[in-house]
């Protein structure tokens, strides 16, 4: 044993650091199996968008775009039935309904549907029969495509298909001749009878008038010709049916390769597609893929992107192009990613003025937000523009916020993964561009308001925290269901830790700012000074308990106990009990014990943080005003102990914790990744602790009190040397053989 009080302040600091670091790290939480993961930088969120997720899906799953086909087919049905039947009703019956829905007519799911009503009339039996046949074929084919299906000669499905095939062949009417032919083409394909499919085309369909149905047959016939080795005929039919997917699969552009001015095969492909179908949805799918690759993965294939830019300019110059807005938008975005802002600005202006679908126009507008945010500042002019842009963004976000909770988007939201376009735009524009610039320009309060909006608005619009799935989400399966946990339930009643509110980008920002700024922000919540502030506050998570607790904690971190007390007194008991700290079992240690440990839990943990702040403030006042040296020294020691513990074993008085590091897989205090060893607030506190302790020990006039302090600090040698005649020294001697001997020798 060699404990001594004669240590330098630096050595003491090391001792404090060790004393506090050990419990801090021993007290770390176990981690979940798949994490923790570091949230992605909001700058990495992709917001280039030229096609819908549905188009992307259609292309990747079947290399076909069904929207056009569906729409035209419904119009054709309307033409042969009644103009009073809305195409949407037709679509529901022709595309969405199952066979049983049609057999159930006029009851069931389709009750009230105008087209269904038409079909139930006796005069329209022919239409109904066709649909029954088509639905049955579709469902049998669907069943045969199921991985569980195993064909055997003469199985039920094949027998039924044979019978349906004959039924289709035997149709002698005119009204549905092309539709029955379409079913025949499908059946031949299902049976891999490509020759019959070619015969069907040559002998029957070829002479029919061209419409969407015969074009669909052309696509099947093209496939049959392709399989028979008739490549040119196949390309001709695919061109007729605008079956771009089959043309791409057939590499139909191979013949034109030598004439192309481009080197990159991807640009050659775009050139081919554009030359045949200048407004094909495939161009939007491909553009999105290429630009996002540059945006997200920093694809450095500059030669390709330069060719893509050249091609985009050619597309814009073409008179056949009705999507000039999309090409200008892509160019603007590519130059933006190259940091060529003047060119980006010029193309963006062109994009805004060019023809584009409403969908692309919205994408362009979202890019305008991003572009403007690159020049974000604290001027009234910018704030006005921002407000106008945010109102529009908020409308878009609210409009499309029916999120698929099944996909656990909340996790993606927390981790800054791209998951929902408008939320992505909000986070990218505000968190990565506007907030840092506005903060730097001297308005950190507005930066906080924007960060809170970007982090939390989505939770107001779709207030789901998490979804648990049982079985499959099949409404007809009684065993399948999804249980949703609302964000309110999660915040108020969830027994586990609240990961979100203490790891969101808003939290990270407020936690990095001074307590005064946080307090100003809190004041602006209750008293917004502008319409923009009001707008943002209404759409943010501004729970009084949550904000006041943060502000109070930040003041505690800055050792401003008076203000900490003021803010913490506004935090409700119920909130305190549902914080991570309470859930983690803290709020029990006595922060004023030198050796704070589980043996000395305090009896009442209500207002734990507040009581600590109040006591620290009381002690601080006493240190200033008390003239009695021993009381003053006692106050200093108690204050120093509380201060040390609040940056040590009772760290939750000055800090929060959240998942941050991956490699070490530990929970870190939110203010400093490395823990308190690198934390400037803690270092400042430790220096103050050293000064106060030294002062107190030199100020004691009562030897017993001074010795007691040394005993708490386990400085036994100092007690022996400086206070050998005290009862404390006698106590140490009686308990410690080493010191008994030591004192005997000294005598």
């Amino acid at each position, binding site marked *: 044993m060699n404990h001594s009080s004669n240590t330098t302040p630096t050595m003491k600091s090391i001792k404090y650091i060790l004393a506090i670091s050990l419990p801090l790290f021993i007290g770390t939480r176990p981690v979940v199996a798949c994490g923790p993961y570091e949230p992605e930088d909001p700058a990495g969120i992709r917001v280039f968008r030229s096609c819908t997720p549905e188009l992307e*899906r259609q292309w*990747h*799953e079947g290399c076909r775009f069904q929207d056009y086909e569906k729409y035209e087919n419904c119009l054709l049905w309307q033409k042969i039935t009644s103009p009073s039947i809305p195409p949407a009703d037709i679509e529901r019956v022709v595309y969405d309904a199952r066979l049983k829905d049609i057999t159930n007519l006029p009851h069931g799911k389709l009750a009230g549907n105008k087209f269904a009503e038409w079909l139930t009339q006796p005069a329209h039996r022919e239409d109904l029969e066709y649909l029954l046949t088509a639905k049955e074929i579709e469902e049998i084919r669907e069943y045969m495509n199921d*991985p*569980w*299906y*195993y*064909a*055997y*000669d003469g*199985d039920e499905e094949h027998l039924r298909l044979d019978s349906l095939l004959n039924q289709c062949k035997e149709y002698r009417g005119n009204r549905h001749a092309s539709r029955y032919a379409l079913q025949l083409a499908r059946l031949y394909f299902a049976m891999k009878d490509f020759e019959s499919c070619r015969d069907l085309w040559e002998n029957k369909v070829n002479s029919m008038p061209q419409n969407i149905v015969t074009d669909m047959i052309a696509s099947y016939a093209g496939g049959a010709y392709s399989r028979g080795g008739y490549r040119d005929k196949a390309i001709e039919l695919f061109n007729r049916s605008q079956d771009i997917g089959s043309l791409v699969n057939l590499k139909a552009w191979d013949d034109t390769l030598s004439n192309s001015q481009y080197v990159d095969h991807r640009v050659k492909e775009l050139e081919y597609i554009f030359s045949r179908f200048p407004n094909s949805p495939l161009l939007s799918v491909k553009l999105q893929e290429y630009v996002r690759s540059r945006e997200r993965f920093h694809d450095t294939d500059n030669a390709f992107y330069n060719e893509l830019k050249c091609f985009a300019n050619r597309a814009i110059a073409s008179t056949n192009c009705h999507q000039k807005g999309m090409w200008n938008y892509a160019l603007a975005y590519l130059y933006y990613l190259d940091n060529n802002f003047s060119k980006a600005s010029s193309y963006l202006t062109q994009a805004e003025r060019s023809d584009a679908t409403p969908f692309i126009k919205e994408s362009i507008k979202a890019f305008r937000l991003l572009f403007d945010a690159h020049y974000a500042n604290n001027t009234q002019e910018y704030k006005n523009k921002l407000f106008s842009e945010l109102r529009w963004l908020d409308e878009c976000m609210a409009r499309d916020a029916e999120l698929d909770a099944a996909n656990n988007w909340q996790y993606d939201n927390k981790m800054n993964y791209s998951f929902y376009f408008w939320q992505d735009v909000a986070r990218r524009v505000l968190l990565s561009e506007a907030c840092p610039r506005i903060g730097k320009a001297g308005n950190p309060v507005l930066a906080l308001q924007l960060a809170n909006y970007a982090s939390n608005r989505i939770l107001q619009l779709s207030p789901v925290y998490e979804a648990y799935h*049982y*079985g*499959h989400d099949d409404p007809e*399966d009684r*065993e399948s269901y999804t249980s949703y946990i609302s964000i309110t339930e999660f915040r108020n009643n969830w027994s586990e830790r609240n990961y979100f509110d203490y790891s969101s980008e808003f939290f990270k920002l407020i936690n990095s700012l001074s307590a005064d700024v946080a307090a100003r922000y809190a004041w602006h919540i209750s008293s917004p000074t502008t319409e923009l502030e009001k707008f943002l506050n209404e759409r943010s998570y501004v729970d009084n308990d949550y904000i006041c607790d943060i502000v109070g904690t930040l003041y505690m971190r800055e050792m401003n106990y008076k203000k900490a007390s003021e803010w913490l007194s506004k935090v409700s008991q119920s909130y305190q009990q549902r914080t991570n700290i309470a859930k983690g079992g803290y709020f029990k240690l006595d922060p004023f014990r030198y050796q704070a440990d589980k043996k000395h839990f305090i009896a009442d943990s209500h207002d734990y943080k507040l009581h600590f702040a109040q006591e620290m403030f009381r002690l601080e006042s006493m240190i200033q005003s008390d003239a009695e040296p021993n009381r003053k020294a006692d106050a200093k020691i108690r204050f120093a102990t509380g201060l040390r513990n609040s940056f040590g074993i009772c760290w939750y008085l000055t800090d929060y914790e959240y998942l941050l590091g991956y490699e070490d897989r530990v929970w870190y205090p939110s203010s400093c990744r490395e823990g308190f060893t690198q934390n400037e607030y803690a270092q400042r506190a430790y220096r103050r602790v050293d000064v106060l302790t030294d002062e107190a020990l030199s100020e004691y006039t009562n030897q017993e009190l001074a010795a007691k302090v040394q005993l708490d600090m386990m400085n036994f040698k100092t007690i022996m040397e400086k206070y050998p005649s005290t009862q404390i020294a006698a106590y140490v001697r009686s308990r410690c053989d080493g010191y008994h001997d030591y004192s005997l020798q000294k005598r």
Partner: protein
Amino acid sequence: MKNSIVSTLLFSIVASLLWCGCSSGGSSVPENNSMYYWRTTFSLNEAERNFLKDHSVGKIYVRFFDVDSHWQSGKGDEVTPDGTIKFVDSIPEGVEIVPTVYITTTAMAQMQLKENLYAEKIYKRINAMCRQNGITFSEIQLDCDWTKGTRKPFFTLCEEMKSCMDSKQSLSSTIRLHQLTQTPPPVDKGVLMVYNTGNLMEMTTDNSIFSRQDIEPYLRDNRLANYKLPLDVAYPTYGWSVVYHPAGEKYTFDRLMRRTDFSNYTGLRQINKNTYEATERVDFSPGSEWWDGVYQGYRIRIERPGASEILEVKAMIDQQLKNKTHTNILYHLDESQFKHYSDNEIDKIYSRD
């Protein structure tokens, strides 16, 4: 017709006499031995057909397909069949086929609450496969490495399977050694798998396919004698090589290789009885499109159970099952594997004392 009855009778009498003659000497090579067939194409070469004849194999447990969980676009994880066997050759005459379905534990967990649905799907698919390939069957076997977590759905699946099946058909299931301590599944018969007993992932494992040391603890307390389900026993007659790559001071599992002969490679140094270490880059199939080799520092462990060790374990098992009728099954029918065992060794493994 008459002639065939007479010749059958004669054959039976001769066979019975031969059987008695063999039995009197102690161990016997019984008829209707069984084997597993675990490939994705059913095709038998001459050696394999001869093996069936020579060793009186009357029953083959053929893996028809696996049931696994697969990501289906727009549907999420779906339990679907995988690796369906393709029947290229006809089934040898007089050989009974037992359709066998391997179910992964992931799929098993996902089947929970829908076991009836999947039982029907499995049964329907087996029926379709048998009809298409001219197979009649009277037994189905389910193979699943169920543990406590997946026991309930597996047992329910077995019950549901039985309710789908014809009353004349029986259901069996594989029983892994670790499953012996738990309640047996609700099937008519079990096949104790006495292989894959060690940890394949560990470089320190001596033989992950078969090791007496690994098996013995599972056979404590006369467990087989007390097991509440009739058991047949499957022994391994296969081998492979396990490749590990260095990862710091340890070795990490890299892959399995069918190749087990490394005697002609100068870049490989034998470091113990069944392990080689690569002293340089070694390409086993130069010119091949796919990389088939090892890099410097890689280690290769050859695993092939020796007949003597199998017979030692078999003696222990037979001792526990001496009062229970059981047959022995070999895993699996593949010339490249069983050629490493002599006819005599195979017969000894098959023998029922």
